[in-house]
């Protein structure tokens, strides 16, 4: 082929340029560490790299999210662990308090004050804030204090049931918070299905067991009342029957009527079974109610209340005694008068006209009827009389039981104790004496009221907790505390489960990320050894091209002319 001078030159230059371009590319690759410098080097690989980087980036963020969730759950877990320790102590104290045989009022007060401290501690835990000042147990409303109290043993939850979810996998969210409602508030009382209790005015020593559901199909979430009645005519020893009323349906007709009571025998109705142990008295009431939600603070606060309070509200007492031998003269006849004060109502001069030959029973009936003549007193169908107090809903009912007049207040509360006072006993010979005694959980300031003592007055008060009643309350509180602890352990277990699933997700994320990173590196990153050896080769090639060029350029026929 014919060759022109320009062609020799052009080809030499072209060769060198080509080799320089190769060298530059190697240089760029080595200095950036990347095999692909721009998408056009390998568009499909570039597109893969973007996908991979995005996937790696997402995983990195998911990992950060997981860290956040762990942080959040750890704080909650620590708080719950502390709460559980508090509850543990409350439980111990309750058991101590339940040992009624060795406790006295003083030791109970000491226990009560420690329980109160623990209550406050628990209350603080429930109002834990995270580092941002968010209440961790307030659900979505994290700027609202989770729990507040009115100071009277009533607690309210101000948050909601919102839970924070955190994205930890591309299709996986983990819950990173629990609402205060779930942890501390929504705890079923009793055994979780129903809760038993003894009426605070029960006179007997009987207690009711927690019970259990034996037939879920028969069970209905109704409220029931078990009422005891003394078998009439009286037997020796006294025997009792019980009737079960459905208060939800409120038909007034018992669903179980006048069943004979035997100590410790199972009482079954509505698919459930409970036992009542001990000795009831006539009119004692036990309740079996569908479990309600009760917050832990109310549970503990009630316990403190029972331990601290001198009584439980309603006042029950007996007025009477052996009238005939106590100066109520049934030989010549007598007129005995006294005053009754109750909740701001004064009934002055209740006058008992003792007739000749009156028996104690007749005198007692006369006394009851005398009370019934006072203004504002309502007569009940069973012959008892009810005196309304000045406070709406508060009243006292008098009735005759045997040779005595008994009374029972209703509507009183722990904070509104209604005492009943009897004073100014007087008769002609100033020798009348009334035997005074509280019954159930009530006490009286004096055992007798004496007409010979001027201004003598006796007050019935709600006394120290009725031992059986207090035991029942401590039992119930223990039950409830156990349920709270169960609940907290459940929540803690759930947290553990979440932490586990976060861990496994992180492991998965990690291995995915490592895998993706490997793939990305394979596609994008440079094999440095290979690149450097390439570059060495390219350098040599360029040098060769340059030398050849110079040699060839020097050849010209003109050199020889």
């Amino acid at each position, binding site marked *: 082929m014919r060759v022109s001078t320009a062609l020799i030159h052009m080809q030499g230059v*072209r060769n060198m340029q080509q080799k320089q371009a190769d060298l530059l590319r190697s240089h760029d690759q080595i200095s950036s560490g990347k095999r692909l410098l721009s998408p056009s080097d390998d568009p499909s690989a570039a597109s893969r790299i973007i996908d991979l980087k995005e996937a790696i980036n997402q995983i990195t963020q998911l990992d*950060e999210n997981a860290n956040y969730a762990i942080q959040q759950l750890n704080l909650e877990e620590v708080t719950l662990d502390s709460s559980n320790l508090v509850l543990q102590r409350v439980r111990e104290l309750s058991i101590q308090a339940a040992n009624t045989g060795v406790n006295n009022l003083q030791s109970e007060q000491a226990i009560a004050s420690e329980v109160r401290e623990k209550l406050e501690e628990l209350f603080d835990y429930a109002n834990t804030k995270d580092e941002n000042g968010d209440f961790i147990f307030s659900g*979505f409303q994290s700027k609202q204090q989770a729990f507040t109290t009115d100071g009277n043993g009533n607690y309210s939850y101000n948050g909601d049931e919102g839970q924070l979810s955190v994205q930890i996998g591309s299709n996986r969210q983990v819950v990173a*918070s629990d609402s205060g409602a779930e942890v501390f508030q929504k705890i079923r009382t009793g055994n979780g299905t129903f809760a038993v209790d003894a009426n605070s005015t029960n006179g007997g020593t009987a207690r009711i067991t927690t019970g259990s559901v034996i037939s879920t199909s028969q069970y209905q979430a109704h409220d029931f009342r078990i009422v005891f009645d003394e078998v009439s005519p009286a037997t020796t020893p006294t025997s009792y029957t019980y009737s079960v009323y459905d208060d939800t349906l409120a038909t007034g007709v018992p669903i179980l009527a006048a069943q004979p009571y035997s100590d410790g025998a199972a009482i079954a109705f509505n698919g459930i079974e409970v036992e009542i142990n001990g000795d009831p008295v006539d009119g004692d009431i036990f309740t079996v109610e569908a479990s309600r939600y009760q917050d832990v603070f109310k549970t503990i606060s009630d316990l403190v209340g029972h331990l601290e309070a001198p009584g439980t509200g309603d006042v029950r007492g007996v007025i009477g005694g052996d009238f005939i031998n106590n100066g109520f003269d049934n030989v010549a006849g007598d007129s005995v008068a006294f005053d009754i004060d109750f909740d701001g109502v004064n009934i002055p001069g209740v006058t008992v006209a003792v007739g000749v030959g009156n028996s104690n029973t007749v005198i007692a009936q006369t006394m009851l009827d005398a009370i019934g003549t006072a203004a504002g007193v309502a007569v009940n169908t069973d012959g008892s009389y009810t005196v309304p107090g000045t406070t709406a809903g508060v009243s006292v009912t008098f009735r005759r039981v045997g040779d005595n007049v008994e009374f029972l207040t209703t509507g009183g509360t722990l904070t509104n104790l209604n005492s009943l006072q009897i004073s100014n006993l007087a008769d002609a010979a100033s020798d009348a004496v009334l035997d005074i005694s509280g019954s159930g959980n009530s006490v009286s300031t004096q055992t007798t009221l004496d007409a010979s003592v001027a201004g003598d007055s006796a007050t019935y008060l709600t006394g120290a907790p009725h031992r059986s009643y207090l035991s029942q309350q401590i039992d119930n509180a223990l039950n409830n505390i156990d349920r709270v602890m169960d609940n907290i352990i459940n929540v803690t277990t759930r947290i553990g489960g979440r932490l586990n699933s976060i861990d496994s997700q992180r492991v998965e994320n990690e291995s995915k990320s490592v895998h993706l990173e490997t793939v990305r590196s394979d596609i994008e990153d440079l094999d440095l050894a290979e690149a450097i050896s390439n570059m060495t080769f390219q350098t040599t090639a360029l040098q060769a091209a340059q030398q050849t060029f110079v040699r060839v350029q020097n050849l010209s026929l003109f050199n020889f002319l």
Partner: protein
Amino acid sequence: MPDLLVTSLSGLRAYQGALATTSHNIANVGNEDYTRQRVELDTRPPIRQGSAFFGQGVDLVNVQRIVDEFNTANIRELTSRSTRLEIYASYASRVENIIADENASLMPALDGFFNALNDVANDPSADAPRVALLGAMEQIEHRFQSMGTELQTIEQEVDSRVLFEVEDINAITTELAKINEAIVVFTDFNKRPPDLLDKRDALLKQLSEKIQVTVVEQADGIQNVLVGTGQLLVSGTVSNTLVAQQDSAQPDRLAVSIQSTAGAVEITGSLVGGELGGLLDFRNNLLDSAQNRLGRTAIALAETMNAQHVQGYDLEGNLGANMFSTVSTGPLQGMFGGDYLNNGFSTGDVVSFDLEFDGRTVSVSHTVLATDTNEDIADALLSGINGIDADANVTDNGDGTYTLAGTTAGISLTFELYGSNIQFESAGGPSPVDHNLTITNMADSGLGDANIELFPLGSSSTRFSNGVATVGTPAVFVGPITTAINNQNNTGTADVYFSITDISSLNISDYEVRYDGVNYNVVRLSDNFVEDSGAAGPFTAGGMQITTTGVPAIGDSFYISPTKLGAVGFTSLLTDSSQIAAASPVRATSNINNLGSVEVSPATVTDTLNGDLASTVNIYFDPATPGTFDVIDVASGFRLQDDVVYFDGITVNQNGWQVQLKGAPQNGDILTIEENTLGVFDNRNALLLAGFRSQGVLDSGNTTFEQSYNALVSDVGVQTQQSSINLQVEESLLQSATDRRESISGVNLDEEAADLIRFQQAYQAMSRVIQTSQELFQSLLSAV
């Protein structure tokens, strides 16, 4: 006998010429357009003397160019192809640099945005992640805008280069015409001046660098130059000028037409090859699609995020505002009303006003009663005796919504009560008559102080002229609407409007609405597919609603570029970190007194525009009908749903939310769904927003934002790669053609040196012959 002297003289002259030509060759060794020349020597005719013929010497008959015309034509074609690819590849790699730069591309910003959303979701009440999210939003805005602007800069640069190329081409063709004129003088085919021919070849090669041409040679040596589909650039001694002027369909860019005595013909579409062809190719195939892809990603991001963000509650307990704005999208949407009782609606006042939309005027009035609440007033304005519903063009749909039919067929506006406001949304696309909703002619029989507040709503780009309408001051909801570009050659009076309403069908093609004399045809320009057609709008195509107005003429066309401006117009709208709507507007709780184990899932919002969304609603298991529940509006006590049979896992829909119920309820149990007031630690909406990172949004829900952007990168990458590979191929072809040319026509100095020696020797020999002749003469003289 021939004269020895004459013979040798002829030789001297001939070799002088040969030496001169050799010297000319050597002199032009560095001229790449030069074709080597050779002298043609011819023996003079012999003289017959007697029986013998005697030669009379030599004549230099011609100086010949050594050239292969076919190779020259081949080089021209290959030059056009490789310059086209060269300019294409260089611009493609510029675009590639813009969109693929590791730090300046969209991906880090997009990642940053979604990471920031995750951080907000992790700690929704904290301020720091929210501030960071605002920063990330600004970063996205910055990326979109700067990439969009850079692409626009390239577009402008391409346009101005087109202008320069056209000027260069015109200069070359003028020159070519002149050379044709000079060449035609020499009629003898073999006696044309070789340097002039070289000059013409060089000019043609220069022209080929600009544009691919066809060269046709006439018998008289004139070369005609044709371009495109056969338009004459150079015709004999006349050149026709190319003109770069505004494109009639897309006035923001230049089109090329050829100007001849017959008039101007637009030939942009048929121009191929060369730098000009490369520029036009790049603009149509790569730049347009890159801009549209980027714009579409921006629009999709803005619309999707907005649509979700407005469904959430911000830190203040207000529904979220739009996060981003881009090109106008969505229907006309908003609400008006406000706190009437504190806005001058006093007892006894008769307040009236007109609503104007699409050529309709709806007159509304209400006499304020002493018992009226704000809700009562809104209700009366909507469906009272003198309410919106009373208008003849309004239909009561029976579900609390009222539809006003516009004067344009297919276009309507639907009203619905939203608390104390009246909310509205248009359907059928932008109204060509009056796309806005105007509240005007307000009158108040009392103190004249009544006013109505305006709220834009939803993910649309509806804006308003002023926040309140008062007596004497009307207010206007300005709906999102874009006018399609009228072709400059249109003769009709029609206009075409469009608005993007469906992101999932939005594609990267541009559209043209063409009127064929009977129907409008909505043509997708990427494949010339007619997506919709009819005598009048509304039309639906490519995620847009398109409406028409006026009288079109046959052949009229309207250009629609839905996505092109998406990136440059992308702006972040939120300025205050508390505006980030991370929470859901509703929450569900179970009542503390419930006896059963029934639980309610967190409420999800299905319709934020439901006016009752925030009302408190109870799900009540009525003991009267065990096994069923009622859905009760707590404020009014109204039973929204009655005696619904319960089963585990049942879904309840009401008021724009949805919940699922689980567990065993007991009679009397209550579940409450209420407004999520103070719910600052709620991240449900933030999680949904963050979830769009890996969720398909575009292309009927198949493409994520990342994939959409990735498609742009790989599209540009592939085009850049292909153009550079093709460039290499074409360059090596051109190279071998050039090598061939060099091998035929190039000057070889060694060859010339040899020639020099050869001709010098011949010359010297001739001189010797003269000397011999003289010596012969001398010897003859001395012999005399």
